[in-house]
């Protein structure tokens, strides 16, 4: 079964995806070895002292515990 629902039985490896029907790009990885579906369990967010306005806008969140490294650089105020 492929996440995109097409009938091709490939395992999502590049070699397979190159050979299947032209209309199905199979861009989505297929569940298989090393790739399993999961259930997300998200705890209720606790209140915490927020960043000040300047830092919050630059970091993209007012909450320090949500300030995670998404590897996007740059950004900031009106003039960077």
């Amino acid at each position: 079964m492929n996440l995109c629902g097409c009938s091709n039985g490939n395992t999502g490896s590049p070699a397979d995806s190159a050979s299947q029907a032209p209309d199905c790009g199979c861009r989505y990885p297929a569940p298989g070895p090393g790739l399993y579906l999961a259930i997300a369990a998200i705890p209720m967010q606790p209140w915490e002292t927020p960043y000040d306005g300047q830092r919050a806008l630059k970091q993209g969140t007012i909450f320090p515990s949500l300030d995670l490294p998404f590897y996007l650089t740059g950004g900031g105020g009106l003039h960077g």
Partner: protein
Amino acid sequence: MADRNSLLQEINETSFMVNDLTLYLDTHPEDLQALEAFTQAAAQRKQLLEAYARDFEPLTMNCVCPDCNNQSQSNTRYPGKKHFTWCDGPLPWDNQV
């Protein structure tokens, strides 16, 4: 009179705070600390918007006040004349000011 860009930057920062607090309060409507932070940030944002509208141009429709907007008479085609101040100020994408 505050500098246009620094006041605008403050409005951006405060608006972001209000927005993020809104998202948090959506899921924590009884969090008193968050409510306090929201009340402060919303009041500050209102004050900043009114100050910007008084000195420059209204950013939101409820700040439009032909008698008290744009006292710096900047970026207006109707200096000294009573007019609809909503059309004053640089275009939002024109940040060469």
